[in-house]
C-alpha cells in the first residue's frame, strides 16, 4: 500500500519535466520536477525504513469501500452534470443532480430530497440568474420564464 502511494506520487510527477523543448519555458519546470523527484524518493526511503513509518499511509480503498464507491459515483455524476448543463439549461440538471446527491447522502427520504432539490434549484436560479443577473444556461424551461 505504501509502495503504491509512493509510486503514484513519483510516477505522476516524473514524466512531466521531460516534455517541453525550449530552453526558456523548460528550465523552471525542470527544477520543480527535480525537486519533486527528490522529495518523492526521500519519502519513499523514509517509509521503507523499518520501524519508523508507524503511521501507515493508506487510501483505504478496501476498508472504506462504500465511501469510495460514493465518491466515484459523485465524480461521474458531477462531470455529467457539467456536460448536460449547456444543453438542458440550469433548472433540470441542477434538480436532478441535487436529487442524486441528496439521495446518496440522505437515503430513503425521497420526499424530503425532492423538496430539497427543487427548492435549491429554484432559489439558486432566483438568486444568481434573476437577482444577480448572471447568465445561466437556458434550456426550454428557462426560455418559457418571463425573466
Amino acid at each position, binding site marked *: 500500500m505504501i509502495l503504491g*502511494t509512493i509510486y503514484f*506520487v513519483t510516477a505522476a*510527477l516524473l514524466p*512531466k519535466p521531460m*516534455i*517541453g*523543448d*525550449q530552453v*526558456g*519555458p523548460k*528550465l*523552471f*519546470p525542470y527544477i*520543480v*520536477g527535480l*525537486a*519533486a523527484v527528490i*522529495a*518523492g524518493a*526521500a*519519502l519513499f526511503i*523514509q517509509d521503507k525504513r523499518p520501524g519508523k513509518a508507524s*503511521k501507515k*499511509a*493508506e*487510501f*483505504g480503498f478496501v476498508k*472504506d469501500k462504500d*465511501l469510495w464507491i*460514493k*465518491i466515484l459515483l*459523485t*465524480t461521474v455524476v*458531477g*462531470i455529467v*452534470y*457539467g*456536460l448536460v*448543463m*449547456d444543453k438542458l439549461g440550469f433548472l433540470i440538471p*441542477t434538480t436532478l*443532480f*441535487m436529487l442524486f*446527491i*441528496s439521495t446518496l*447522502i*440522505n437515503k430513503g427520504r425521497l420526499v*424530503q430530497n425532492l423538496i*430539497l*432539490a427543487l427548492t*435549491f434549484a429554484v432559489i*439558486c436560479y432566483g*438568486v*444568481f440568474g434573476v437577482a*444577480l*443577473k*448572471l*447568465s445561466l444556461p437556458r434550456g426550454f424551461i428557462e426560455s418559457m420564464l418571463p425573466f
Partner: protein
Amino acid sequence: MQEIFANLAIGFQTAMTWVNIMWVFIGGVLGTVIGMLPGLGPATGVAILIPITFGMNPATALITLCALYYGAMFGGSRASIMINTPGDASAIVSCFDGYPMTKQGRAGAALAISAIASFIGGMIGMVFLIFLTQPIANGALKFGPPEMFSLMMFALVATITLSEGNLLKGAIAITFGLMLSTVGIDGLSGQIRFTYGLESLNDGIDFLVIIIGVYAVTEVYKNFKDIGLVHKFDSKHIGKVWITKDDWKRSLKPMLRNSPLGFIIGVLPGMGGTIATFMSYALEKNLSKHPEEFGKGAIEGLAAPEAANNACSCGAMVPLLTLGIPGSGTTAVMLGALMLLGVRPGPTLFTDHPEIAWGVIASMLIGNIILVVINLPLAIPLVQILRVPTRIMLPIIMGLALIGTYFLNYSSFDFVVVMIAAVIGFMFIKIGIPLPPLVLALILGGTTEQMFRNSMVLADGNPMIFIQKPISAVFLFIAAASLVYALIKNARKKKTA
C-alpha cells in the same frame, strides 16, 4: 502618520455606502452560518460563496469577501461551544473551555465572551494592520524580480517548515502545486506545456476551480462518513448572552495580551489561526493563578484564543494586501477571489488603487463592529442552524460548489477538473499530504516562474543574482535557516520519541 489617516479617510468614503454596509451585513451573517457548520472553515466558506460577488464592483466584492472571512471566524467557535465540534482547526481550542461552560449552563456567557474577544482581538489586529501596511507596501515597491522570487521562495518554504506536520509531504504538496501551475500556454514564449494534447488545458488550470475542488468538495467527502449525525442541544438553557463583571475582569488581560501575539503569528507565512490559538491557550494556562480550572470552563481559556485567532486573521491580511502573498489556505482563497475580480494585491495596489486597498481595511473595521452586533443579540437564533442535520447541509454545499465552478469560466471542462481535484485532494488527505501548501504553490507558481525568468534574463543566465542582491539573499537565507531549523526539530523529536 498623517498620510495614514488621510488614506483611511479615503477608505471610509469607499466603504461607507449603504450598499456596502448592507453587503458587510449579509456577508457577515452568511460567513457566520458557514463557519458554524462542523468541518467547514473560512476557506471553504469563501470558496463556495465567491459567486455572490460576481457582478459587483471590485470594492464592494472585496468588502463582501472580507465580511465572509470575518464572519466565518466569528462563527467557527459557535459550534465548538454549543456541540463540541469545531467548525475549523482554529476553533479546536475553543472546545477546551467553551463546551464545559455550556455544560455548566453558561453557554450564554461563553457565546458572549467569544464574540467580545473576537471583536477586541480583531480591533487590536486592525490597529497594527493600519500602521504596518503602508510602510511594508512602500518598501516592497522597490523589489525587483530577484527579490520577489526569493520572497516567494521564502513564503513557500515557510509554509511547510513553520507549520506542524511532515516536511517531506509538505514539499511534495508544493512541488505538485508548482507543476500544476506550469500547465498551459507559457506566457513568455507562447509554448504549450504539459497539456498532453488536451486543448481545454491550453489556458492553464484555473486555481479557483482547484480551490473549490479541494476545499469544498473534498470537505463534503470527508464528511460522508458521519452523515447520520444530528446535533442536539438545549437552547432553553443558553441563558442571557452577556457576561458578568467578574468574567470581564478575568478575560480582559488575556485578551489584550494575546491579540498582539496572534497578529504576529498571522503575519508569518504558514502559521495560521490554529497555531495562534494553541499558543495563546498554553500561554494563559501558564500565566494563570488557577491553571487547574483550564479545560473545566475557565472563561479566560476561551477569551484568549478567540482574541488571538481574530488578531491572527488581521495579521494574515498584511502579506496578502502588501505583497500579494497569502500565508494560509484561507488567504490563498481570498487572493484567488481578488485576482478573479481583476484586483492584483501587492505593493502597487496601494499606489494605483488606494481606494480599494484602504476601502478593504476600513470595511474590515466596520465589519468587525457589525459582526459583534450580529453575534450578541442574534447568537441564539443563529446557533439554531447547528440543528440542521449534516445530511441536508452536505448536498447544499456540493450544489453551491458546482454552481460556483460553472460561474468561474462557464465551462463544462471545469467540472471535470473540479471533480478530479476533489478526489486527488481526498487521497492526499488520506495519506497525510497537506493541501494548503499545494494551493499556495499553485497560486504563486505562475508569478514565481515569471520572476525567476525575468531575473535570469537580467543576469544573463547567472543564478548568482539571487545571492548578489542583498534583500534577495536575506530572504533566501531565512528560507534556508527555517528549513534547517525544521530538520533539527524533527531530528530531536525522533530522538525523544
